[in-house]
């Protein structure tokens, strides 16, 4: 049966059909749905780990135990999991182990545009790259075979357009490979220098074998249409090239992107007058070709930034441009915003109003950086809010301690914020950290996390008690506020900034999109009372706008959180 499936759903289907039994991941766009779909198969145990490093170690443990295992993450997640990856390359596997890493060319939902192929090269593991949903499934299954055959973790590189596009997939049955026997083997699995030296020799030999495999792998395909133009490409770039050039070019479509073949490439290049390399982000295939002495063109045409598309290929290779009509008039941008009723809004309003410096982090609350709240000074990577605040305060002293806070979400705090807080307590700055506890991992589409009391399957689970945790770390001043109570929240922030002690404020209220959250009826503006002062617009709630000089509330969006009525000095907003 053919089914329309998201690349990520097809990947999960591949995990199912390959007989995977253990999945541990941390969410991150565009990788998240692989694990969510995997969790729908009863035969697979699937969990959200607190971060990618933990997830990868869980998967490696399960592989060593003899089962087929998987972990998934976005590109920057692999930086967090790089430590286990580089040594898992040495230990190799027992049951097959596959890692999904999803790159985000164009940064639809990311803080940088790094190319995860560098990690595969540096850690010397096999990397495959599918170009549509059917391949997501097939490559995933192949990855498990190859993992076991070559004794290596295998990375399957996804990208936004492959992960989040649906195309037809043929479903197959699940294989049930027997669990491999576990035999204690310290020379393979205890990576202390004496044993690791031996494994490094193994890794280099494996790389040679993998390169030989790449020469003849069925995952690398030549589509020979004759002609003068050859295109070497992989992943979604292949689809762009194929759409733009059709049968007017020949293609070497690489499914194995690390290690890259040599003879295959040389033979392909020899056949065509002009050979182009079409790859998004870095020039990895192109440099490889050039190292082999091949005269190819790539980045001089396509650059290193953002996505390619069929239009870009057609323009660069054929000089073709489409005709189109533009709208006659200025079209204002529509940036993402916090939802109506978002619990983060009240807190950011208080920070904005008091012009407090904010060491920010990553989550829905990063939207607090946008106008009109504009209450964020830095955002770097998950967890950096707390550690960077400590550094900022060490550098600038008391003046900074009294006017700067860190903001971090509950999931992000569990991911990598806790260790920064340990540092604040241990190395003593009078820092003020605000944990935005909305009881969910919001930005990535509402995943459970260790603070929510539920696991990936939605079943009850142990919940971290944030207050007790912060106290155990050594923070004596820990308090909880309700961000819908603006006066209480503002007072707490001022008090904690003023004291000469480290403190944590937990701003607690569940995300407005959670199903169990009961909303109040929409509020209304009493037009006669409204003076048109626009104070309420400073909240940046998408449900409030001004028409003919008076505030209006969109009843289809408003969830009755009430903070606009707290802000209005004239009592013009009420139930």
């Amino acid at each position, binding site marked *: 049966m053919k089914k329309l499936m998201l690349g990520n759903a097809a990947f999960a289907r591949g995990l199912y059909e390959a007989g995977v039994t253990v999945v541990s991941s941390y969410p991150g*766009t565009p990788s998240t749905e692989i694990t969510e779909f995997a969790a729908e198969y009863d035969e697979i145990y699937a969990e959200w780990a607190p971060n990618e490093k933990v997830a990868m170690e869980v998967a490696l443990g399960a592989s060593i135990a003899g089962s087929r295992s998987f972990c998934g993450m976005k590109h920057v997640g692999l930086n967090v999991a790089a430590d286990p990856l580089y040594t898992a390359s040495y230990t190799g596997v027992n049951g097959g182990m596959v890692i999904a890493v999803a790159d985000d060319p164009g940064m639809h939902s990311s803080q940088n545009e790094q190319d995860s192929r560098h990690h595969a090269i540096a850690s010397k593991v096999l990397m495959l790259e599918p170009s549509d949903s059917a391949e997501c499934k097939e490559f995933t299954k192949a990855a498990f075979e190859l993992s076991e055959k070559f004794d290596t973790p295998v990375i399957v590189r996804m990208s936004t357009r492959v992960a989040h596009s649906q195309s037809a997939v043929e479903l197959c049955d699940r294989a049930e490979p027997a669990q491999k026997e576990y035999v204690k083997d310290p020379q393979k699995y205890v990576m202390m220098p004496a044993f690791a030296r031996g494994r490094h020799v193994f890794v280099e030999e494996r790389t040679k074998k993998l390169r030989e495999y790449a020469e003849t792998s069925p995952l690398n395909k030549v589509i020979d249409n004759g002609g003068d133009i050859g295109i070497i490409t992989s992943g979604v770039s292949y689809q*762009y090239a194929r759409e733009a050039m059709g049968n007017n070019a020949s293609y070497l479509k690489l499914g194995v992107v690390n290690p890259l073949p040599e003879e295959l490439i040389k033979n392909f290049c020899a056949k065509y007058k002009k050979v182009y390399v079409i790859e998004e982000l870095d020039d990895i295939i192109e440099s490889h070709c050039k190292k082999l002495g091949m005269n190819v063109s790539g980045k001089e045409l396509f650059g290193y930034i953002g996505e390619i598309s069929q239009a870009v290929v057609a323009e660069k290779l054929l000089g073709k441009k489409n*005709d189109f009509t533009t709208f006659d008039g200025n079209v204002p941008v529509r940036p993402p*915003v916090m939802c109506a009723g978002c619990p983060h809004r009240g807190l950011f309003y208080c920070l904005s109003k008091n012009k407090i410096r904010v060491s920010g982090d990553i989550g829905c609350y990063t939207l607090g950086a946008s106008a009109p709240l504009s209450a964020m000074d830095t955002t770097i990577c998950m967890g950096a809010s707390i550690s960077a605040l400590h550094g900022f305060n060490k550098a600038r002293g008391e003046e900074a301690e009294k006017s700067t806070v860190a903001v971090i979400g509950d999931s992000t705090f569990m991911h990598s914020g806790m260790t920064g807080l340990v540092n604040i307590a241990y190395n003593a700055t009078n820092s003020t950290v605000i944990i935005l506890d909305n009881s969910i991992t919001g930005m990535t589409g509402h995943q459970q996390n260790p603070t929510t009391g539920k696991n990936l399957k939605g079943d009850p689970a142990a919940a971290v008690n944030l207050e007790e945790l912060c106290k155990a770390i050594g923070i004596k001043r820990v308090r909880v506020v309700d961000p819908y109570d603006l006066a209480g929240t503002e007072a707490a922030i001022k008090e904690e900034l003023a004291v000469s002690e480290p403190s944590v404020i937990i701003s607690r209220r569940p995300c407005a999109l959670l199903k169990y959250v009961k909303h109040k009826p929409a509020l209304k503006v009493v037009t006669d009372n409204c003076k048109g002062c626009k104070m309420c617009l400073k909240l940046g709630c998408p449900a409030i706008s001004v028409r003919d000089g008076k505030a209006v509330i969109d009843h289809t969006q408003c969830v009755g959180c009430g903070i606009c009525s707290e802000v209005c000095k004239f009592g013009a907003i009420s139930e």
Partner: protein
Amino acid sequence: METRSIMIVGVGGQGSLLASRLLGNVLLAQGYDVKVSEVHGMSQRGGSVVTYVKYGDEVFSPVIEKGEADVIISFEQLEAARWLPYLKKGGKLITSTQKLDPMPVITGNAEYPENIIEKIKAAGIQVTAADALSLAEEAGNSKASNVVLMGVVAASTDFDDKLWQDAIEQCVPPKFLELNKKAFELGKKAAV
């Protein structure tokens, strides 16, 4: 058959994902090769969102570029204006008359353009406009305006009604089936 391209544009949270899935399933059932490209993550928080639906004998690229869309289905007027350059010469626009102010308009830093639909028509583009929001409210929930618009689309294509009904049943949770079927019918009628 040459690949045909449909874009669905709107504001994050308006339900364009469901609309594109409905359309994708109808096209697959028609025997086409289909690709549907969605956007997840950040822009779903009230940003401008776009999904691409492409179908034909064999579809390669999942994305649609400027001047390539045969049809644009828009959930909101400003978004219709924003994505207009993606329409092919001779392409068609189906839009809801709903207006949602983006944050720069709310904060007074920009103005919501006036007479969007008239201006697009004046540019020589064939436009079908429907008050999808009111019809959705009539069906029982403002959130069903996505399915209302799919009804409008259905009225202008000749795919068997059964395919649409099957797709709705496949993509909508049973609890909301009745409501969505009603929304779909209202959309179909509005298009006539």
